[in-house]
């Protein structure tokens, strides 16, 4: 019983990392209607920037986070302008392939800049672990912070898209780019802002990911990125609360599968979930079904 509970807790902390990455995925997909496969690598860049900020420039953790967010925001806007904007009218497959290319470009740039040796990420969060049932059950400090950050970001994003003028513009662009433009919405600006927010979230996710799993290499972002994409689809891609629910459930499924079924097949469970969701409920848990009018 206690071991089940502690596996659940581990699943929760892994899932919260997936959730926070999935929020960025779903945000960009929901508005720009494109899968930004380079999202995982923006996370990696964010983690490297905060590593440098702490390790080489001796900044305090909070400033390191701000520096990472600033760099990632700029990076996100630049990526969108250079790689995705010229393809606004192209097929979605072309955009997808460009995103994959961007992902490799970022990974190899990181390899050039920081080398292939693993960097051990510093512990940026000093929240004590909570120990329950006489020390049998331990909830890690990073997990608590990650879950709280997830909830805060989820609420803030929901409020932003439903209450602010920019949020309204985003929803307009998401529904129909052409009509939004006719209504006087600056589509390019709106999409740039979306990428800026998504990339700033990626920086936060990168710091939290590497605090939980402190080994930083140029490929750090790719596997969590793909799993978070699965989480976003699981929860219903485009849905902000869906990303959070999907991420946490996926983490729990992965850990329980590893613990009780097979240790080697941990990743396979995650992707089996993706296949089942796509077969049974393609809109995901909380996704909206869109009726195409003919």
């Amino acid at each position, binding site marked *: 019983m206690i071991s089940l509970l502690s596996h659940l807790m581990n699943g929760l902390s892994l899932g919260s990392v997936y959730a926070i990455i999935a929020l960025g995925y779903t945000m960009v997909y929901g508005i720009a209607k494109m899968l930004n496969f380079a999202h995982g690598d923006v996370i990696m860049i964010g983690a490297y920037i905060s590593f440098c900020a702490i390790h080489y420039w001796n900044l305090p953790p909070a400033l390191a986070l701000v520096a990472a967010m600033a760099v990632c925001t700029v990076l996100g806007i630049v990526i969108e302008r250079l790689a995705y904007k010229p393809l606004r009218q192209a097929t979605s497959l072309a955009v997808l392939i460009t995103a994959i290319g961007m992902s490799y470009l970022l990974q190899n740039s990181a390899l050039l800049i920081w080398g292939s040796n693993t960097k051990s990420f510093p512990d940026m969060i000093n929240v004590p672990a909570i120990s329950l049932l006489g020390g049998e059950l331990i909830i890690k400090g990073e997990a608590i912070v990650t879950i709280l950050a997830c909830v805060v970001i989820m609420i803030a994003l929901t409020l932003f898209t439903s209450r602010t003028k920019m949020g309204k513009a985003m929803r307009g662009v998401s529904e129909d780019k052409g009509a939004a433009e006719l209504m006087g919405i600056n589509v390019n600006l709106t999409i740039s802002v979306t990428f800026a927010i998504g990339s700033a979230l990626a920086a936060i996710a990168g710091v939290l990911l590497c605090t939980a799993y402190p080994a930083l290499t140029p490929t750090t972002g790719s596997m969590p990125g793909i799993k978070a994409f699965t989480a976003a689809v699981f929860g219903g891609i485009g849905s902000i609360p869906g990303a959070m629910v999907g991420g946490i459930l996926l983490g729990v499924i992965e850990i329980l599968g*590893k613990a009780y079924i097979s240790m*080697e097949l941990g990743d396979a469970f995650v992707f089996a979930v993706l296949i089942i969701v796509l077969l049974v409920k393609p809109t995901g848990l909380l996704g909206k079904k869109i009726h195409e009018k003919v």
Partner: protein
Amino acid sequence: MKIRKLFAAVLALCMLMSLSATASAEDALKIGVIGPMTGGAAVYGIAVANGAKIAVDEINAMGGMQIVLDVQDDEHDPEKGINAFNTVLDNGVQMILGTVTTAPCLAVAAEAYEERVFMLTPSASATGVTEGRDNAFQVCFTDPGQGVAAADMIVAKSMGTKIGVIYNNADVYSTGIYQAFAARAAELNLEIVATTTFSSDDNADFSVQIAACKDAGADLVFLPIYYTPASLILAQAKAVDYAPVFFGGDGMDGILALEGFDKTLAEGLMLLTPFAASSQDEKTQKFVQAYKAAFGEEPNQFAADAYDGIYALYTAAQNAGINGDTAYDEVCELLIAQFPTLQISGLTGELTWAATGEVIKTPAVYVVKDGAYAKVD
């Protein structure tokens, strides 16, 4: 006119100098070094080339037989390894120290066996390198050798009674050590209470593996893996207040050099490695100082293996009466006869060789104490 004469004179001088250079190089022993000098595994190849250079400089300074190194890059790629092998042969090399990493080494060993070139690998540890080839020898332990030595050491020093294992079952190195370890543990009645696996060095979450070891009551966890996943395991075990003895192989060497690593996490970590730069042994200290002065960093195990390898080749060549004029196929047969009788007192211990090509040396156990290796006696 004058300029042309001057030019001719300079050319003639150049020719004369190059002639005299070849003349002195002809007496010298020519050793080819093949390994990854660029790419992802470059850290190993460069360490080997540097370690070999320190040994060669020492030998050449002694006077007597001189050694010339010919270093070629294989980028940790079997095909490029063959190219490098052909290049060193074209350059007139008589024997090879290499290759550094296992995959290219297997390819080059097959070629060298056909061509009758003697090769001594400083660091390719798979048994396949020497198996069925009389011309291939190793300076490093084989993977199974390490597993057996680890089990012996744990029993001899009674480090633990209930053993947990976390290994990478998608990796030849890790699996090779684990299988020999498990077989030896069964012979010694060493109880393995939990065997857990992962399947990629990119794996980040080890909570399930750690929980399995913890729940089984393991008081020693054997980690025959590389240091990157090991650093995550140490951090995650600490987060759940699990503090068994952690015991690793030579892949663990390097964990303290991990940039940004919190060394207190590794406190008490044991590892089986033939060489530690912090050792107070006089020979080691001399090597470490020379290496630091020449290359500005601490040598690792690969550099030490290469250093011992050069001395082994040098000593064997002297014993066999090989000089700079002996043809490589002749050298090969002479060295094959010489190596099983050879005794080298090197940086990585007292080395002797079995006729099969495997090295026989005693591994040493180190423990991390105050952020540095300390030898366990």
